[in-house]
């Protein structure tokens, strides 16, 4: 882990102990204490689900459709392709449609670096974290949530977090079978992937492009983060995105 410097401050310890003791006094007697500890322990290790809305129940098609509907309502654009080889052209097309330079940056995710970028020779690709000069970035979602139309991006060298926020245009690829119903489904995926109680440094839930209503409650896109969010769903069952060749 980077920079494992010890705490730079001392003296908080007393505050901590006094506070915890004070809270404990209002809530517990010695007898109760074991019970309370057990209740907390169980909740933390079992992490039971509470109420999960039913709206996302259904097959992949339903989840893709719900995700698309909600993302679109949140001002993102969504398209489907059926094969990875179609992605570079979809990206180039998105850039062209918005009069953006044919230049894009992504992380070291093999699923992105390994795409057939030679098909779109005029499209310049580079990798790394976001630079201020980048106009468009690209990422691959760890997962998505149909329930609210939400992308789930995890940090790391494959998909550096700054790519999600710094450029004005953001293209995200998500595989259709990674669109889960609920947040809870995704937490289970993360536990499975990273280990119990371990989170990536950053998990971003993203539901549309950046916005603000701070001036007279009027909605404006692109407040600090991306003004445009374009999502490419990789769906081998998709009819919409069948090969154009």
């Amino acid at each position, binding site marked *: *882990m*980077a*920079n*494992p410097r010890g*705490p*730079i*401050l001392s003296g*908080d310890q007393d*505050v*901590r102990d006094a*506070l*915890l003791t004070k*809270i404990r006094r209002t*809530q*517990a007697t010695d007898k109760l204490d074991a019970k*309370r*500890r057990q209740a*907390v322990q169980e*909740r*933390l290790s079992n*992490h*039971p*689900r*509470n*109420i999960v*809305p039913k*709206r996302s129940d259904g097959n992949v098609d339903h989840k893709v459709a719900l995700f698309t509907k909600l993302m679109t309502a*949140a001002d993102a654009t969504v398209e489907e392709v059926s094969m990875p080889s179609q992605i570079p052209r979809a990206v180039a097309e998105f850039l062209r449609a918005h009069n953006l330079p044919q230049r894009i940056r992504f*992380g070291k995710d093999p699923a992105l670096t390994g795409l057939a970028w030679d098909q779109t020779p005029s499209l310049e690709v580079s990798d790394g974290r*976001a630079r201020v000069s980048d106009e468009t970035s690209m990422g691959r979602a760890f997962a998505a949530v149909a329930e*609210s139309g939400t992308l789930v991006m995890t*940090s*790391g*060298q494959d998909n550096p*977090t700054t790519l999600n926020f*710094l450029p004005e245009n953001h293209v995200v690829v998500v595989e259709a079978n990674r669109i889960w119903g*609920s*947040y*809870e489904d995704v*937490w289970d995926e993360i536990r499975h992937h990273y280990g119990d109680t371990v*989170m*990536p*440094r*950053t*998990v*971003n*839930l*993203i*539901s549309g492009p950046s*916005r*603000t209503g*701070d*001036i*007279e*409650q*009027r909605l404006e896109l*692109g*407040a*600090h*983060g991306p003004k445009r969010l374009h999502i490419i769903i990789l769906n081998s069952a998709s009819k919409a995105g069948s090969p154009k060749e």
Partner: protein
Amino acid sequence: MESTSRKFSSNAREALGDSQLQRALSNVPSGFVNKRAKAAAALPEFEDLRDKGRDIKNHVLEHLDLYLEAYERRVIEAGGHVHWAASAADAQRIITEICQAHGAKTVTKGKSMISEEAGINAALERAGITPIETDLGEYIVQMRGETPSHLIAPAVHLNKDQIEADFRRVHDHLPKDRVLEEPASLVREAREVLRSKYLAADIGITGANFLIAETGTSVIVTNEGNGDLTQNLPKVHIALASIEKIVPTLEDASTLIRLLARSATGQEISTYTTFSTGPRRLGDLDGPNEYHVVLLDNGRSDMIGTEFQDMLRCIRCGACLNHCPVYQAVGGHAYGWVYSGPMGSVLTPSLIGVDEAGHLPNASTFCGRCEEVCPMRIPLPKMMRHWREREFEKHLTAKSIRSGLKVWNWFVARPELYHRVSGLAAKFIKARAGKRGRVSNLPFAGGWTKHRDLPSPQGKTFQAIWKERQKNG
């Protein structure tokens, strides 16, 4: 922050006479109320989620010591640092020291009410460090030397023209003849100005909507993405949070997330919900090298176990402000301190004392709209009444009310006399009203008749009529 809550009545009068403010406030009902109603109606589970949300927070408050310990352990495991602050002064000192240890000159800040409460900006400035608010609304109020007037819409008290004037005054390096007609051009200008600030900042400070004990994670929720740039670009990320922000698990956080945006803005979920755990990891290309959490008590532990404990369930969604006719009338600043609206009327006396903020829980008709929409089912009117009880016990209730009440209670306990006097009052007012059927001024009723007529009684009391009727069978 210095409080002017004592002057609530005159603050309110001023606010009501401020036409700019009134114009800005007229956006509140259409902007928030209808959207919340739609979002709530669109999710069949919404009411059950509210029950769940309430239960989660109640469970946390009953086990807060243990969850805080569990949370701390996980933060440290992930390579972060946890600092404990009993008071605002502690939080100021801790944050200033971290900044000084890194030789920080500027810090960027994500929107955080707890930072307002703890006076972090003023403390940083005293230490020669420049804090830069990055949420657009916060940025605007900071450039005006004001404080936010709403939990989630800090500049809701302003109109576009006022903001344009401020931008022209403060961004004096930009061409004078530039066009700033539309909100869009103001948003763009703020975006560009703040860009360089993010990159130059040595430290980023955010609040936290939730702290997850299971994983040692802090969560922020924004629509702009400013919090993410704030916490990802500088070398150090400090998250400042009050102790009751703890939730046990990712599942519990999910339940509250489902409630938060729907209640606040009527969105399904806010645009960005970010979970941060420790500093950057081996191989990461970005993210902070250091991650600090400052846990602030500032009076909250005193509320646990009292009739005000329920207030600690608040997730700062702002729904109670949006739906409150008093807030809609006077705006946030009239309340005189960081928190306004119904939640402020309950919380402020807890944090700065009921002798200072005694007006706030009184300035309510108990119409109950706040409780009706509060996602955490906090019984706000009931708690305002509890404050009134405490004031009454401490003899803080206004003299006029106290003595009026005494007289009334005395009569109420003496029915014969009561009926004689109410009969006289009915006759007296009716006589005064004469043919008009109403009076425009009346001794001892100036508060009423200043603004409205008093319809006349019909002349006889019901009891008198009923008695006659029974006699005549």
